[in-house]
């Protein structure tokens, strides 16, 4: 009945189901500027997780009364495609999606100079095409490079990845099996150069020491993803456009 007891998620030598070590990211692909009708866009694959992000704006706020005199409004929509999960997900936004849209907005907002664009709105649309854990963090990582492509001035990029506890060990970047059968999942977003945390959540059970270990381990993953983000932005603006 309880799968977590029958599956060995991590071997004695610290090798995970998909062959990774505890401190290894899944294979990651990022690409900036994949859509023509947006101010900015990005596509990310992290393991089997696949996400497309579009940025629209800064543009005039609709309805007008939501506009703020002193800064732009950031709106984010995290949404999972009906075909992104094993069982079809209803396209109507779930409570989970409402919550994630909020925490993702609050993860990106500290990086943006929104005061440069008063009375406008910047929309970030995060569409999860295939979900295999880590979708909010991969969504943030991709959204931040899409915002950069849109030319919105930023203090730093925002980079996110989850750490978790699987088979009693603190590991980096859970996949779906680890998320489902593991003991804890802790997504974290940071502005890496400024060393500031912009998103922090935990589902599951961690001791104080594991919490500390997790925060340390996440920095390794964030550092690697940060350099991939910069690489993707450089590729976009050096003229070496790759196909979608």
């Amino acid at each position, binding site marked *: 009945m309880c799968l977590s007891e029958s599956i060995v998620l991590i071997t004695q030598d610290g090798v995970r189901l998909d062959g990774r070590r505890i401190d290894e990211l899944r294979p990651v692909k990022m690409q900036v500027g994949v859509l023509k009708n947006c101010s900015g866009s990005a596509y990310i694959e992290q393991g089997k997780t696949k996400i497309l992000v579009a940025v629209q704006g800064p543009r005039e706020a609709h309805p007008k009364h939501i506009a*703020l005199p002193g800064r732009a409004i950031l709106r984010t929509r995290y949404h999972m495609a009906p075909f992104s999960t094993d069982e079809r997900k209803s396209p109507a936004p779930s409570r989970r999606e409402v919550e994630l849209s909020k925490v993702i907005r*609050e993860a990106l907002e500290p990086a943006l100079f929104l005061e440069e664009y008063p009375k406008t709105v910047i929309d970030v649309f995060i569409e999860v095409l295939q979900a295999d854990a880590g979708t909010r963090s991969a969504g943030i990582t991709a959204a931040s490079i899409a915002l950069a492509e849109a030319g919105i001035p930023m203090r730093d990029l925002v980079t996110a990845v989850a750490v978790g506890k699987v088979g009693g060990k603190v590991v980096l970047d859970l996949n779906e099996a680890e998320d489902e059968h593991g003991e804890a999942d802790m997504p974290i977003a940071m502005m890496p150069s400024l060393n*500031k945390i912009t998103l922090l959540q*935990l589902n*599951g*059970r961690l001791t104080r020491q594991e*919490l*500390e270990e997790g*925060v340390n381990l996440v920095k390794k993953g964030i550092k690697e993803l940060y350099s991939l983000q910069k690489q993707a932005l450089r590729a976009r603006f050096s003229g070496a456009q790759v196909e979608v």
Partner: protein
Amino acid sequence: MLADLSTVEEFVPIQQKELLALLSTGVREDGRKFDEYRKVEIQTSIYEKANGSAMVKIGNTVAVAGVKAELGEPFPDTPNEGVLTVSLELLPHASPSFEPGPPDENAVEMSRIVDRGLRESKSIKTSELCVLPGKKVWVIYVDIYAMDHDGNIVDASGIAALAALLTAKIPEVKVEGEDVVLLESTRGIPMAERPVPVTVAKIGDYLVVDPSLSEENVADVRVTMTTLESGIVSSIQKSGSGTLEEPDVLKIYDLAYEKGKEIRSLLAKLG
């Protein structure tokens, strides 16, 4: 009543400046120390028709929780386990900024924080709520009402939910073949943990526990950590568009664990 200007965006920097000036002298607006929780009052069994109920006051913040238990079907992937459903409603009674109707993102977020705190800690022994495997299990509904908002609704709601669960009584049952008969006698809901959420706000560089409404309005960030007796943290949520420094995480954990202990000792008196 005059319009509440405290949440108008343009006023926030002014209020924050005032509050920061005060905090720099080591005092909070209401005279508390940074790590001082407001007085917590817990009353239980206040509604007879609910299986369990509780009212929690944190200063002037009030939340009530009602537990209703019904026999229902289990989820197909957990045929031998009872079901827990937690929801939080921000009543318009609580604040001029709360409106009736479908919950907004704040209500959804708070509701999910409380839900995760109870669920991820595995506080309820759901396997002991199975009546007829695969067919009949107890479905436990915990409905929380925020009734008066003076900051920190999340903690008040989480504590109310826990107090209501700890004191709830559900009927004993007798299984006769495929039929389930409810008996007159009752039993408690089997609980394995007492997860207590504690919220810490960051205002400028200061961490203050159990933020009041005026502190919440100007806080850059709020972090809610739910801890258990053993020191395990079972849920974390950062809320708000500010940032945290890395060392903040453990500082907040230490505050949450210490305050969680104090609140757990109040709950222990409920029996």
